């Protein structure tokens, strides 16, 4: 009996300790504002950009600010819905998902470029596909890679465009093979290496990676540029005003819009942040429903 009692106590104690560590413990005056961002490109760049944002916001807002790295798009949305983070840099579609799951949450700022964002179709040089102004129907039958499954410029908009140009067909029927690379940097690498012949990529990541010397123009090139659509934005939970005081959401928005330091903006590939509202993303809800990615 003693042995079992001891084991049971130990097990119970461990469980309690585990739960206590995860629970909303530590009644501090001001808990840190925690944020995350979708891992859409090379992690080293993410660490650089979000580290700088954390520092900047901490100085502007007077509350501790922490960044939580995540490994996937849905993990970012989950962290937002279960309250682990209060603020997130979402893509257009993940933002729509997150705001649907957390009523009252708001899109507060987007990059100036995000109001009219684009994706590129890129192709390996071996395909011989030329750059064109019209949608290149010759990509049918090739191998094709999207970015992450929940990416706006790497999945949602490309899939929508493909479905429009090949009526009645899914991407799996249009292409000989369809993959999900996971992020835009990886998409570029896969198409450049020839692992996939064609891919859909975020234009800002393409530009950043081209500037960074990671793109070999002889191996991979842009063959088509999409029409504009709304994309990335900062979304904040409704409960921050309660936690950090009335008007915190507005201060947060102002702080983001006030960013002028190129050291912060450059890793984002943005010239500045501008105010935005949930309504700006209504078109994406329609597209999400049309492609079956959203209920």
């Amino acid at each position, binding site marked *: 009996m003693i042995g079992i009692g001891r084991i049971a106590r130990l*097990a119970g104690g*461990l469980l309690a300790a585990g739960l206590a560590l995860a*629970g909303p413990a530590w009644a501090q005056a001001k*808990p840190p504002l925690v944020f995350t961002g979708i891992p859409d490109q090379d992690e080293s760049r993410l660490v650089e950009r979000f580290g700088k944002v954390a520092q900047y916001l901490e100085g502007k807002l007077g509350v501790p600010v922490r960044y939580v790295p995540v490994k996937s798009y*849905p993990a970012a949305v989950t962290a937002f*819905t279960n309250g682990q983070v209060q603020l997130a840099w979402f893509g257009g579609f993940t933002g729509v998902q997150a705001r649907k799951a957390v009523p009252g949450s708001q899109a507060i700022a987007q990059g100036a470029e995000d109001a009219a964002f684009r994706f590129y179709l890129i192709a390996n040089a071996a395909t011989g596909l030329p750059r064109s102004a019209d949608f290149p129907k010759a990509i049918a039958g090739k191998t094709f890679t999207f970015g992450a*499954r929940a990416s706006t410029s790497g999945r949602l908009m490309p899939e929508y465009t493909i479905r429009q140009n090949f009526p009645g067909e899914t991407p799996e029927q249009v292409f000989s093979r369809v*993959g999900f690379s996971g992020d835009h940097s990886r998409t570029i690498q896969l198409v450049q*290496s020839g692992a996939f012949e064609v891919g859909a990529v975020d234009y800002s990541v393409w530009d950043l990676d081209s500037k960074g010397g990671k793109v070999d123009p002889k191996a991979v090139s842009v063959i088509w540029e999409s029409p504009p659509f709304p994309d990335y934005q900062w979304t904040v939970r409704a409960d921050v005003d309660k936690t950090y005081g009335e008007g915190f959401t507005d201060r947060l928005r102002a702080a983001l819009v006030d960013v002028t330091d190129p050291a912060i903006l450059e890793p984002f590939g943005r010239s500045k942040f501008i105010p935005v509202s949930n309504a700006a993303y209504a078109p994406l809800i329609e597209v999400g429903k049309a492609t079956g*990615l959203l209920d």
Partner: protein
Amino acid sequence: MRLALPSPGYRGVSGGFAVAALACLSVADLHVTTLHPLAELTRFLGGLIRPDFPAVEAWGVAYTVAFAVLGVGLGAGAGLLIAIPFARSRGVRLACAALRSVHELFWALLLMQVFGLSATTGVLAIALPYAGICAKVYSEIIEEADLSALRVLPPGTGAASAFAYARLPDVAGRFADYTLYRLECGLRSSLVLGFIGLPTMGFTLESAFRQGRYAEAGALLLVFYGLIGSRRLWVRRWSVPLLLAGAVLALPPAIGHAEVGPSLVRFLTHDIVPAPLRTGEGTLPALWAWFRPILTGQILPGTAQTLVLAQIALVATALGALLLFPLTARRFAGPVGRPFGRVLLVAVRSTPDYMLAYLCLQLLGPSMLPAIIALSLHNAGIVGTLMGQHADAIPYRADAPRGMNLYAYETLPRLYGQFLALLLYRWELILRESAIFGILGVTTLGFYVDAAISELRLDVAVVLIASTALLTVAVDALSRRLRRSLRINDLPVRLSGPPAVARGEAVGA
């Protein structure tokens, strides 16, 4: 199915599995989509040879150990308690089967919804399935144990007292052996949890692989092998309380706290409730209309692909093990070759197969081929090690033949039942892993789970995970039936090793 023949012999079962695997090969997608797999492989091996040890973060190592120690500690503790009623209660057995048929990664993906990226998620993701596995194995160890002490207890002794005084002293040593083996598995699970965002070594390992920082990846891997290889040195009777206490202290501080209460309520009453019930159209036709596309578009194709992958991987494992086990057997490898063989096999089996699959997928592109390679390498390492131990325990005649003749005419025939028992036992484990590889892009059941989670359709994800669990349980039952009909169900199959083999190994070492 072809396996339901009246009473197949060794030849029938082996042939049936081989033919099925060949049939599966003809429908499997074995395309290599990357153009320079060898160049990447060379770069990776270069990283292993020139590892960048300063890049390894000590905290990542500490968290990996802490999650494993606490997860296994909790799981084994709970398993020990559940083992007492295990043999008597069908309900308990079913609950344990359900717990262990869901992979740690699936548990983690579900737990993350409620507990966020936190220590609780990491520890529970290991503890829940391990409680189910430990309960079953501990109960089996109890069943196999000596009953003489139990028979002399006075009537009216309570179940718990009887267990503590008459059973535990006899089985404690084997419990300890098995729990140490579980800790090895726990370390692998803990590493793999990093791939989905928990702060273990897997987190940096994934980043390093993804961005081609192979020197850092090589260093992380070598540190991990060191951890596993030295576990007998740092896991001692006296060090267990220290490890547990140290692990609690070393748990990573959560950055931001998930609202556990509201999240749990939302998860249970909203997120995982089938969509038609949530919107109030809980009629049977509405439910069927919701379920049918999931069944035809995801469960059935996913199940078929999972079975195909597992079947090919199982037979590839068998061939691999037949080739590898002589490397670790004294009679074949000799005193010089055997240590090398053992190091090779320990390295192969210590590599988590999920990580191996991730690496192969980076090298070869998303098809079934990398998954087959990963599964069969890892499992052939395990089966080969065990077969080597059994081969060393065989009492040979003084004039036994040598080389190929010994292998083909004596060793293999004498071990063949054991060989099949091991493989059939691993079938279920291979299937569980096959399903999870979908997260990496192979179109097994995990592929659809990943899609459902990306679309925030947790109700669909839960249905798919439950299908995976059912499939695992069904294959486990089939494997048991086959082992019974071949009369090999009493042969040892666990890596922790029964006493007879342990003694044989001690003589050899």
